[in-house]
C-alpha cells in the first residue's frame, strides 16, 4: 500500500500578497513597441488623425457610459475596454473593411471601430429600440453584421469556434476575406479554443485568433489561471504566432497588417497574443483587491491614446489646436449620444416575440 505523505498540498498558484521583492508585479510583460514611423507604415497624416479620433471616441464613449450607469440610466453588466483601445483601432485600420471581426463581451470599442455610431451604441446600452441590436442585447452584444462585425458574446470562449466558422465560410466561398476572433486571456483555458485551433490548422482556415491579454481574468491574474506564455499554445498546433505590444497602436497596426496579408495569401491561421491592460474593474462591481494601484499607474503612464497624441505633436503632424478640435467634436458626439439614448423609445411590447425565428408568425409554445 502506498505510504501516506504529509506536508503542504496546494493546487492553484497564489496571488497578491505572495510576492517577496516588493517590486510592482506587472499583469503582463509588454514586448518592445515598433520603431517604425508612420511613413514607414504607409499611414498618412489624415489617417493618424482618424486613428486618434477613433481611440478618443472609444475612451470618451465609455467614460460617459460609466457615468450614465452610475446614475442608474441602465442596468445589466458594463465591461469597459478603457486602456485597450489601441488593439481595436490598430486592427480595424489594418484589416479590409469586409474582413470579419468577432469578439467577447468587452465589445464597445470594437463596435465603434466597425461603424456602430455613438448614438446606436449608447442607445443599446440604454436598452432602446434605436440601439445597434435594437435593445435586445445590451452592453455585451453590440453587433453590426452589415459591416462584418459579428458581435460581442458573453460565454467565455464560446465565440472562438464561431470565429473559425466565419473563416471556414470565407475559404469555402473563396471570397478573399479573412476572419479575426478576439478574446481575453481567461478564454484561453476553455477547451473550445483548443478544439478550434486543431481544426483551424488542419483545415487551413484563413483566421487570426487573437488573445487580448490584459493580465487578468476577472480577479485572477493570468499566471494564476494559465500555464506558460499564452502564445506558446500555437506551437503545439504548428500554428504561426506573434506577440504584440497592445499599448501602442502602431505596433498593432504594423503586425496585424503583415499577418492579415499572410493569411490572405496562404490561407493559414495565426495565433496572436496582444498584451495590454484594462484600467477599470472587470465590470462595474469589482473592488479590485487582486491588483495594486501602483500596477495600474504603471500602465496609465504609457496610455495608448496619450502616446499617439505625443507622436502626432512631436512629429508635427498636427497642431495641438487641431487635436483639441477633434476632442471637442468627439465630446459633443458622445454627449449627443447620451441625449439620443435618453430620448429614444424602448422597444415596443410586441418586439419581445420578434427576432426569435425568421418567419413572420412563428410558433411559440405556451
Amino acid at each position, binding site marked *: 500500500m502506498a505510504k501516506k505523505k504529509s506536508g*503542504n*498540498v*496546494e*493546487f*492553484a498558484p*497564489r*496571488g*497578491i500578497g505572495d510576492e517577496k521583492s516588493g517590486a510592482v508585479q506587472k499583469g503582463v510583460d509588454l514586448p518592445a513597441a515598433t520603431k517604425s514611423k508612420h511613413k514607414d507604415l504607409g499611414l498618412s497624416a489624415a489617417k493618424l488623425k482618424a486613428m486618434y479620433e477613433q481611440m478618443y471616441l472609444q475612451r470618451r464613449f465609455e467614460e460617459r457610459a460609466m457615468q450614465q450607469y452610475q446614475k442608474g440610466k*441602465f*442596468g*445589466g*453588466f458594463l465591461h469597459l475596454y478603457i486602456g485597450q483601445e489601441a488593439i481595436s483601432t490598430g486592427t480595424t485600420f489594418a484589416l479590409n473593411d469586409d474582413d470579419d471581426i468577432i469578439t467577447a463581451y468587452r465589445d464597445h470599442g470594437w463596435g465603434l471601430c466597425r461603424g456602430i455610431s455613438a448614438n446606436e451604441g449608447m442607445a443599446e446600452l440604454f*436598452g*432602446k*429600440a434605436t440601439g445597434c*441590436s435594437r*435593445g*435586445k*442585447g*445590451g452592453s*455585451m*452584444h453590440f453587433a453590426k453584421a452589415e459591416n462584418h462585425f459579428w458581435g460581442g*458574446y*458573453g*460565454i*467565455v*470562449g*464560446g465565440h472562438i469556434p464561431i470565429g473559425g466558422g466565419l473563416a471556414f465560410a470565407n475559404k469555402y466561398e473563396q471570397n478573399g476575406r479573412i476572419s479575426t476572433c478576439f478574446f481575453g486571456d*481567461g*478564454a484561453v*483555458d*476553455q*477547451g473550445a479554443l483548443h478544439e478550434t485551433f486543431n481544426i483551424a490548422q488542419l483545415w487551413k482556415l484563413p483566421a487570426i485568433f487573437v488573445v487580448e491579454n490584459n493580465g487578468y*481574468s*476577472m*480577479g*485572477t491574474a493570468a499566471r*494564476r*489561471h*494559465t500555464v506558460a506564455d499564452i502564445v506558446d499554445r500555437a506551437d503545439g498546433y504548428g500554428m504561426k504566432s506573434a506577440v504584440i505590444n497592445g499599448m501602442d497602436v502602431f505596433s498593432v497596426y504594423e503586425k496585424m497588417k503583415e499577418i492579415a496579408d499572410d493569411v490572405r495569401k496562404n490561407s493559414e491561421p495565426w495565433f496572436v497574443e496582444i498584451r495590454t491592460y484594462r484600467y477599470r474593474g472587470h465590470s462595474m462591481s469589482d473592488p479590485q*483587491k*487582486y491588483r495594486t494601484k501602483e500596477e495600474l499607474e504603471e500602465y496609465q503612464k504609457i496610455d495608448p491614446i496619450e502616446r499617439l497624441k505625443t507622436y502626432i505633436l512631436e512629429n508635427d503632424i498636427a497642431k495641438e489646436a487641431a487635436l483639441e478640435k477633434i476632442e471637442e467634436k468627439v465630446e459633443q458626439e458622445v454627449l449627443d449620444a447620451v441625449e439620443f439614448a435618453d430620448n429614444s423609445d*424602448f*422597444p415596443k*411590447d410586441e*418586439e*419581445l*416575440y420578434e427576432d*426569435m425565428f425568421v418567419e413572420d408568425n412563428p410558433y*411559440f*409554445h*405556451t
Partner: protein
Amino acid sequence: MAELQFREAIKAAIDEEMARDEKVLVMGEEVAEYNGAYKTTEGLLDKYGYKRVIDTPISELGFAGIGVGAAMNGLRPIVEFMTFNFAVLAADQIINHASKVKYMTGGQIDCPIVFRGPNASAGQLGATHSVAYDSMYAHFPGLKVIYTSEPDDAKGLLKSAIRDDNPVLFMESEQMYGLKGEVSDEEDYIIPIGKGKIKREGEQVTLVAHGKMYHLAVQAAKELAKDGVECEIIDPRTVKPLDLPLIIESIKKTNRCVILDEAHPFGGLAAEVGFLIQREAFDYLDAPVQRVTLPDVCAPFAKNLFDLWYPSVKQVVDAVNQVTYRN
C-alpha cells in the same frame, strides 16, 4: 433561530461540512482569493487553506470533470459554477459521466459530488445568462436537483447534498444572496432531500413554487388574501426527487392548482407537476391546472421587455382567478 442572509446560510453549510469531513473541498472560479464572485465562500480560504479552497481557470468542462474524477476516487468535491448558465459547458461531465458512472459500472463506483451556483435569470443580463436549468437536469436519471427559496432550506439541504453519496445539483440565485431569513441554529441542521414544505396554509388554491418563484407566490397570495382568496403555498425545494404526496394532499384540499416555474414552458417542472396532478388527483380537480412560466422566448436586455418577459405577480393572480373562475 438566527437571521442569516442566503449567502451566509450557504457558507455556513459548506463551512460546517468542511469542518466535519476532511474530504470535502470547494473549487470554482474566484472561490478562493476573491472570496467568491457572490461571496458565498467568503473566509473559507483563510480557514481551510489553498488545499481545500481552490481557484480554477475558466474551464467548466475541465474542472467539473476533475471534480467527478476526484469524487469517484474518494473525495467529496463541491464544484461551484459562477452560474448554471456556464455549467452548460460542463454538461457532458454532469450528464454523461457523473449521473451514469455508477450504473454503467454495475454499482462499483460512487460519485458523491455537489455542483452548485446561481440558477436562472438575475435581471438584465441578456439571453445567455438568464436560463433556469433545474428541470433540464432533473430530466436525467441519476441526478438529484435542489433549488431552494429561503436561507433555512438552503442550509439544511446543502448539508444534505454534501453528505449525499450521489451527484447533486444545488441551485441558488444571485438575486436571493442578500435575502435574509431565520435559520435554525439546531446543531447539525439537516433537511432531507426530497421533502417539500407547506409554507403558507390556505383552503382555496394550491400554489406550487420553488426558488425565486416562491417569493412571487408569496406576493400574489398576499394580494389575493385581500380579496378573500386564501392560497396554500407548497415549496417543493427539491425538484428531483419531487415530494409529490405533499402536493397531492394539498390538491385534495383545495381542488385547484397554479404552478409557478422560472423556466420556459416546454417540458419544465410546471409541465411535469401538471401531468402528475392529473394522474394522481384527477377526480379532485375543480378546474384545469394552470401555470405561470417564462414565455418561449430568450431573455431580452431592454428593461421594459425584460419586465414583460419575467413572470409577474399579476400573471399569478390572473391564473388563480382563472382556476377559481373569478374572471
